[in-house]
């Protein structure tokens, strides 16, 4: 079973994604802040990371940068999933190595699941 790390501080979304991705036979682990996300990325070596940008303790861009710098986590595909629709943030996230940048409000849950399936490690 493939593992997805979901770094997101919204409990409602954590709950929904755990269920919907669980239904697709993925194991979802939750991190509610940036520091916890980084720690779990190293410890659990997930097959994909879903990353929000506005996070407590450490912001998403900083988390992404550190994920891509660390030997153990640099090859994990990261999907940025945020409501921040800001050109600078999009460019920054993609230049740091994010697979794609999704603005939550522009996608349905089903479309996000499709993006996860497309980008998860083989």
């Amino acid at each position, binding site marked *: 079973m493939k593992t997805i790390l979901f770094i997101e501080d919204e409990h409602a979304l954590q709950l929904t994604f755990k*269920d*919907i991705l669980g239904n697709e036979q993925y194991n979802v682990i939750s991190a509610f802040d940036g520091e916890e996300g980084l720690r779990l990325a190293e410890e659990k070596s997930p097959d994909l990371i879903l990353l929000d940008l506005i996070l407590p303790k450490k912001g998403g861009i900083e988390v992404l940068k550190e994920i891509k710098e660390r030997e153990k986590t640099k090859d994990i595909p990261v999907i940025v999933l945020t409501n921040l*629709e800001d050109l600078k943030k999009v460019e920054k996230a993609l230049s740091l190595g994010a697979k794609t940048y999704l603005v939550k*409000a522009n996608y349905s849950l089903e479309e996000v699941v499709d993006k996860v399936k497309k980008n998860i490690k083989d």
Partner: protein
Amino acid sequence: MIKKFLNQINIRNQCKRYGVPLWQCPQFLFLIMGFGIILTVLLTYFLGTDYIEDPSIVFFIVVFLTIFLITISYTITNSFERLAEVARMKSQFVSVASHHLRSPVTNLRWVIEFLMSGRAGNIRDGQKKYFEILEKNTKKMNILLRDLLIVSRFESGDFFSDKKETSLVEITQKALLDLKEEIDSFNAEINLNIEESLGKVFVDPLQIEIVIRNLLENAIFYGEKEQKTKVEVTIEKNSKKVYFKVKDDGIGISETDKKNIFKKFFRSQNATEYQTTGSGLGLYINKIIIENLGGKIGFKSKENEGSTFWFYLPIKK
């Protein structure tokens, strides 16, 4: 410190901050009035020395005129600055409010989508219609917030497009599929005329979907009552441009409303009689998006006979 000072004297940056054109910008007005005052004072001085013998009278006239003009220009500039600041704060409020509302609305939308998928357990028949009401209304809220944010970003100069190779045909077909329920309930008949080998255009797919959907919705929603609305969608190209056209035989637009149709929050008189819920942002946003992508949007219409809205986009990157 130096950067802050340079930013203060950079008129273009200040205008951008207030979100107003150059000629309405307080700093620019202050500069123009400053030149005007210097010229007027110099002219008064030279004319005064020519026509008035007593230099002390000339001195008093010049001093009085200078103080008078500076007071007037200060008052005018200050008023403009206050107005610009209020406009900026209003725009910022819309932006912040929309941003903060966006997350809970997205959460709500996704949770409803998840519940309706049946993955969290079966929904009873009696509950289904209420979930559908919730789904429709959260979608509406999401669209309104999206529209307000587009307008706010455009007005603050932060609007951008994420361009990709995009098929207008696929987007149109998807939009028509999404609008199936509305097409049926408004008794609309859709005809598609698509040129073969149309290829793709380099645009922002999400933005162009907004434009196409807005045009289709307008054509479907504003049909003559108790009559089948015929909507004809044409997509064609020449060597440089792709043309998209939506023709309907609906209520049309009156001559007096035509000049305002792309204005923010404008809704034509006959449109409000047919549909009470529109925000008046759709066509304004369409114009922002199409022009930002290097294209052009327009229409022709006759009241009670129908309208044809069109846009074109450049094929080249």
